[in-house]
């Protein structure tokens, strides 16, 4: 077994990330989250589990939230990906980021990028959710610090029926 075979096939993956064209040669089995973190050095997207349960790795692909640990980078060639690094513009926090800050919606901050991405996606589908809808919409994102109360409050403050 030669090295290349054993390591899988190296493929060139091109995609648009945070509005910029990106390219890297990676193993075909490379998960999107590791492509972003290890190859593009966009380390804001975190890995919290290995079963697609926690949502720390949530990014947007074509505007929709996706758990980037469940997707091969090769599957989303050519896609338009947004990570947490692409949310603040011109030195201003995205309104959802600002809401998390104002409402103390984060403590250790590890789940936060995924929460912010999931929450913005939620509001793009339902601009005016109830508290119950926010909780249901964020069911796939786990946080161990906040008890969720201030996360829900953050999301409702941006676009909900608070």
């Amino acid at each position, binding site marked *: 077994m030669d090295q290349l075979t054993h390591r899988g096939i190296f493929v060139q993956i091109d995609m648009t990330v945070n509005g910029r064209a990106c390219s890297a040669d990676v193993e075909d089995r490379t998960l999107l989250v590791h492509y972003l973190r290890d190859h593009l050095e966009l380390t804001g997207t*975190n890995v919290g589990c290995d079963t697609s349960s*926690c949502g720390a790795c949530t990014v947007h692909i074509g505007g929709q939230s996706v758990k980037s640990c469940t997707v091969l980078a090769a599957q989303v060639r050519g896609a338009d990906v947004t990570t947490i690094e692409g949310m603040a513009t011109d030195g201003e926090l995205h309104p959802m980021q600002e809401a998390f800050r104002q409402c103390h919606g984060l*403590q250790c901050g590890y789940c936060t990028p995924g929460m912010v991405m999931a929450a913005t996606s939620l509001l793009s589908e339902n601009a005016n959710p109830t508290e119950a809808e926010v909780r249901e919409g964020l*069911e796939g994102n786990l946080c161990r610090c*906040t008890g969720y*109360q*201030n996360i829900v409050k953050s999301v409702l403050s941006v676009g909900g029926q608070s």
Partner: protein
Amino acid sequence: MTIMGTPRLRKEDPKLLTGEGKFIDDIHAHGELWMGMVRSPHAHAKIQSIDTTEAAAAPGVHSVYTGAELQEMGLWVAPLPCAWPVTEDMVNPPHYPVAADEVRHVGDLVAVVLCDSRYGAVDAAELVEVDYEPLPVVASIDAAVTDAVMANTDISSNKAYSWALEPDPEAVDAAFAAADHTVVGEFVQQRLIPAAMEPRGVLAIPAPFGGDITFYTSTQVPHIMKVMLAATTGIAENKIRVIAPAVGGGFGAKLNVNPDEILAVTLANKIGLPVRWTETRSEAAFSTHQGRGQNQKIEIAADANGKILGIRVHLDADMGAYMMLLTPGVPLLGSFLYTGVYDVPAFGFTCDGYFTNMTPTDAYRGAGRPEASYAIERAMDLLALEVGVGPDEIRRRNFLAGGEAFENLETASTLVFDSGNYGPNLEKALKLADYASLKAEQQRRREAGESKQLGIGMCTYVEICGLAPSRALAGLNYGAGGWEHAMIRFLPTGTVEVVSGSTPHGQGHETSWSMIVADKLGVDPDDVHVLHSDTAHSPLGLDTYGSRSLAVGGTAIAMACDKVVDKARLIAAHQLEANPDDLEFDGGMFRVKGTPTAEIPIQGIAYEAFTAHNLPDGMEPNLQEQVTFDPENFVFPFGTHIAVVEVDEDTGGVTLVGYTAVDDCGPQVNPMIVQGQMHGGIVQGVAQALWEEASYDEAGNCKNPSFLDYLVPSPMEVPNMVLDSTVTPSTSNPLGVKGAGEAGTIGSAAAVINAVCDALSPYGVTDISMPATPQKVWRILRDAKGGEA
């Protein structure tokens, strides 16, 4: 105080919100090698042989080491540390980072691969072939107690220690002999997986020349880590720099000194290349310690009115396979709290610690105190039933000091409680929760025979934190002190650096410390910069655990500020040609009393101290002071938690529908942060009550190591909580503050289970074990109804 006591947004947030915060897995070093861990699939076995040939030949592999090879290489000079040998004769067989001949829990390390990629390391580890001879397994406390099977072939009994707190055993016996009522509670504190959202990880970077090593690790305890690395690896302590980067939650699970940490440092030091590892979530059930794991028996003796005469407690505690840093001491931290907030004339506590073939246990949010609070608060409800009064009334009848305010009160558990005022706290919580209306609604549903019944449960907890007076720790045979260090440094241009020995992992220390300094020095909080979590910046510290940061570390900061002001006053007096006693200091300005125009800002003093052109004779230049604060007593926060659950009699499902908590942690520096701590803490205790359990089969396999089946609650499972507080200042520190990090967890599990039992009480149900799963509730109801569901 103008800034302390007000909610203030956190300094930490912008970095964390934008992905700029650097956690351990975000940091890389050129030429780094990944450790691929080869772990035992057996809970107990002899290692017969290991074949590393194929792994060594795998692409990108630098080297492969078995436990025996590592032992021969002499990489460590001492076993992994246990800093808390609770008794002189505690049994603690040597535990090295990688097993050489015998594995003692599933996931025990047997070999390690070094490889140049994240995925390659995992692949290569799978190529290591190990022959095991399985040995009999001890997979529960009950099995350990019988000694039918040994969890370790080097021991002759699974019992590692017996520890007792029995100030007056005869008095306890007399109390039970004289009792009109006695109740017995037998409770199981199931094992829990701490599950900080960030998995642990390490990166050890050796300097090319000179032998220095920089060690990044996802830890709560960089300072303790540095000492322990020196002690176990033989690397000189002054060659080691430990850095805790942004740490994604700890909850106790990141206060250990783990095999992977010793391994990374020693291998990097040996081969001269950076070595790293990040645990996977499923691996964490084996590579990071678990919490709880106790069988409890509590007995209360009371008179005819339900007034407590005595309490007797025995614990059998599950150490797991090895004594980790604080493993044996965790039950002791709870020992002093089994008398709760009550006036208990006679008290006795005994604890036996047992080895098992499961992942080691150690501190998990609350560490010993949630267990204690659970036992006494469940038992108080049993006593209320026995005596025939409500749970609120049984508590009122037994509160320390009759439920009135007290200071420095000695209790039957030998400790002096700093301050308390339990009665008003309970009444405030009952009012806030509208207890009377809840009981009325419960009665209505019962009479209507509705399928969803209401249960209301309360917990009036006290906890012990602010660890700790060093002398008190010495009395418990703890290996270190409990002080904390702080330095305050005015920079020449008027901004302030705070050097803190406390090590945050989500608690917002940078914000809170800035608020203390701003108030004390009259500066803008944004002009205060806090250095922490890096032993090169902050050489002295004892880190963050046991809700100690504010009460010990925050106090050190406040005291160091006072020293800065004292020195600045002398300089100001010199410059203003006034007597120091004639100066007042307010809002960052020194003024001569009665001469408002004669004033000088502290920033100006700082510059004068820097240039040293015109200082009082003999005074050292610069405006910088340090304090190491060693408190004389612990702090004892308390509060009342009221949980409301809905039990679906058709399905057994329990839904938490309401939660009210009135906590008292003394004056709050930043109420926003305190509330956040309470929210998260409460949900962790609720999770123990209703969902979480690290479940093991008879072969010692953890059956639910991943987030698929270990049920960390999602936003769907918890309601909004209603919080309020009372304020009873501590006498243990000049700020009067108490800890808030663990109180939520300490108060909530008992409140929830008391609520579940309350809902089931019409069927004669008085207890249910945690977690109160739908299956368990359904079966209890079926049995209570005579076999019909």
